C-alpha cells in the first residue's frame, strides 16, 4: 500500500486525487511535480504542528499551570540549549569561562552518544539478523528462544553493574548495554519474518538447486527484509531509550550522561534540552531508516 492513500485502494497515482488530462506533457515529469508538491505540503504540516505545540507549551508555562521545576518555559530551555553549546561564564558576572556543559558542547555530547549507539546497533544487526535467521530455520530456535526472551526482558539498571564489572567503566560496557538493547527486537523481528516466508518461495528456490545457505540468502533474507527493517527501527529506538542508563556511570561526554547529571542537579531546563535533542536525533535517524526501507523493499504490499 502506498503512503497516503492506502485505504482508498487507488494506489497507483500518489496523492489520492486524479490528475487532470494534460495532452502531450510527459507524465513521468508530471508525477515528479506532484511528488514535490506533496513533499512541500508535508513540510508545511509538520512545521505548523510543531509551532502549535511550542505555542501550547509556552502558554502552559506562561499561565503557570505547571511549575518550572517540571516544565520550564521554551525560552528557558532554549537558553539552556544555547549555553550548553557555547563558551560561557560559570555564573553571571563571573570571569571564569567554561566550555558548554561538563567541558563539552552539547553537540559533542550528542556525537559521543551517537557513536556508541552506532556501534551498539551495528553489532545488534550483525548478531541479531544471522541469529534470527538461524533460530527461525533450525532447531537452534527451540533451544535458544527462552534465552533470547530472558535477555531481552532484563532491565538494564539491574545488570549494568555486571557489565561494568566485566567490561569496565569505559565505552565497552556502554556499547554492550546498547547492543543488548538493540539486538533482541532485531532478532525477534527476523524470526517472525522468517515464519512469514511463503513456503512455495522456498520450495521454488530449492528446485532451482539452492543449497541451505543459498536459500537463506536468496529467499529467506530478502523476504524477511521488511520485518528486519522494522526490527531495526525499533532496535534503534530502544538504544536511544537506553542511552541514559548506559551513561549514568562515567557517561561524560554523552547526552544521556549529561541529562542524568542535570537531573541530579535539578536543572530541568537542561534535561529537557537534552530530551529534545535526543528526540530530534532519533527522528532524523529514523527518517534515514525509512528511506532505506523504501529503497530496499519496493515490492511491499504488491506481492
Amino acid at each position, binding site marked *: 500500500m502506498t503512503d497516503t492513500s492506502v485505504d482508498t485502494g487507488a494506489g497507483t497515482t500518489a496523492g489520492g486525487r486524479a490528475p487532470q488530462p494534460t495532452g502531450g506533457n510527459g507524465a513521468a515529469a508530471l508525477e515528479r511535480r506532484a511528488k514535490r508538491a506533496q513533499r512541500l505540503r508535508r513540510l508545511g504540516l509538520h512545521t505548523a504542528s510543531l509551532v502549535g505545540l511550542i505555542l501550547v507549551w509556552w502558554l502552559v508555562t506562561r499561565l503557570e499551570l505547571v*511549575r*518550572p*521545576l*517540571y516544565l520550564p518555559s521554551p525560552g528557558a530551555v532554549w537558553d539552556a540549549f544555547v549555553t550548553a553549546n557555547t563558551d560561557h561564564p*560559570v*555564573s*553571571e558576572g*563571573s570571569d*571564569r569561562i*567554561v566550555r558548554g*556543559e561538563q*567541558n563539552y558542547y552539547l553537540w559533542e555530547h550528542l556525537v559521543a552518544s551517537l557513536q556508541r549507539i552506532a556501534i551498539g546497533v551495528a553489532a545488534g544487526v550483525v548478531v541479531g539478523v544471522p541469529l534470527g535467521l538461524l533460530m527461525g530455520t533450525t532447531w537452534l530456535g527451540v533451544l535458544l528462544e527462552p534465552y533470547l526472551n530472558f535477555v531481552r526482558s532484563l532491565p538494564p539498571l539491574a545488570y*549494568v*553493574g555486571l557489565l*561494568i*564489572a*566485566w567490561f*569496565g*567503566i*569505559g565505552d565497552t560496557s556502554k556499547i554492550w548495554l546498547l547492543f543488548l538493547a538493540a539486538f533482541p527486537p532485531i532478532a525477534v523481528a527476523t524470526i517472525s519474518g522468517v515464519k512469514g516466508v511463503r513456503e512455495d518461495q522456498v520450495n521454488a528456490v530449492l528446485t532451482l538447486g539452492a543449497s541451505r545457505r543459498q536459500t537463506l540468502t536468496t529467499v529467506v533474507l530478502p523476504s524477511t527484509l521488511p520485518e528486519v527493517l522494522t526490527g531495526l527501527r525499533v532496535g534503534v529506538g530502544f538504544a536511544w531509550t537506553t542511552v541514559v542508563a548506559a551513561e*549514568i*556511570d*562515567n*557517561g*561524560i561526554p554523552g547526552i544521556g*550522561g549529561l541529562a*542524568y*547529571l542535570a*537531573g*541530579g*542537579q*535539578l*536543572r530541568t531546563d537542561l534535561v529537557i534540552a537534552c530530551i529534545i535533542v535526543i528526540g530530534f536525533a532519533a527522528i532524523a535517524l529514523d527518517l534515514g531508516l525509512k528511506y532505506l526501507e523504501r529503497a530496499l523493499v519496493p515490492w511491499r504490499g504488491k506481492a
Partner: protein
Amino acid sequence: VESGRESTTAADSDCPFEPDESIETTARIAWQPIPNGDLVVKDLGLLEACMPNAKIEWVQAASGGDVVEYYGGGDVDLGLMGSSPATIASSEPKVRDVDLAVVWIHDVIGDAESLVVKDENVTEISQLKGGKIAVPFSSTAHYSLLQALIEEGIDPNKDVKIINLAPEKMPGAWQGDQIDAAWVWDPTQSQLLDDGGTRILSSEDTAEAGRPTFDLGTVDRTFAAENEEFMTMWAKLQDHAVKMIADDPDAAAESVAVVLGIEPDAARAQFEGLTYLTAEEQAGQDYLGGKLAEDMLTTAKFLLDQGGITKVGTPEEYAEHVDAGPARRASE
C-alpha cells in the same frame, strides 16, 4: 498486592511517650535508605503508635533530588535529603517551586563517607593528581570531594579526572583498576576497604575544615505551620531514636537492618561513621539554631561555582529555610 504494607512484627511497638490522639494529620514522608534515626522511627512504627489517629504514609526515594521533585509535585510533606539538594531547593529559582524548611539534622556525616584510595602509598590527596576518582555526582560525597580537592589547590576539572559512578558499581571498577580512588559511603566504603583500600580523608575532615555535610530532615513550610503538634511529636520521636542509637545500639541496629535488608552487625558498624544529634544539640547555635544556615550559604556559593545553581541567595534567605522550632519544642 497493595503497596504501603509496613513492618508487621514491629508495628505493635509502644509509644515511648503519651500517645496524642488529637493529632489527625495525614503526613506523607519521603525516606531514603540511610542508617539513621529515621529508619528506626519507620521500622518501629513510632509515629503510628504515638499518633494513632494520624495517617502516616512512607514514600521511598532514591536520592535527595527525587525528594525535591516529590515536594514539587505535592506528593510529600516531609522528607530526608542531603545538604546539597536542600541548599539547591532553598536557592533561586527552585525555592519558587518547593518551599521547604530544614527542621532536623538526621546525622552529621563523618567517617561514613570517605576517600578510599587503591594505592597504599598514597597518603595525601595531592598524590592523586592525574588519577581517576569516582564519586556519585550531586551527592554530599561529591561536595566533600570537591571541597577537599580545592582546599589542596587541586583543580577538579584539570588535575584529576572525576568520574560519576554509582556506589554499587565502584567495586567492579576498583577491581578492574579503572579508578584510583573513590569517595563513597557504606556498604561500598567497607567493601573497598576490605579490598585493600586505604581511607585517606573523610567527610569528618572536610567538616573540620568548615564544610560539613548532613542528612537533613525537611518539611513543607505550609505543612509545618499548619501541623505544629505533629511536628513536635515527630521531632520528639526522632530524638527518641537518636537516643536509642546511643543507648541501645543493638535494638536500633536491628531496626535499621530490617529496613535496609542487611545484617544488624553491618548496620551497627555503619553507625560509627555518622554523628547523631539530640534535639537539644540540634536546636543550639551550632546547628539549626544558627550555623546551619551559614553552612548552607557556603554550600550554595560552592554549588554556584560548580554550575549546580545559578544564583546564591542572601544569608537571610537561607536562615528563613531553617526552622529550629520543632527541635526546640521537642527538647523542652
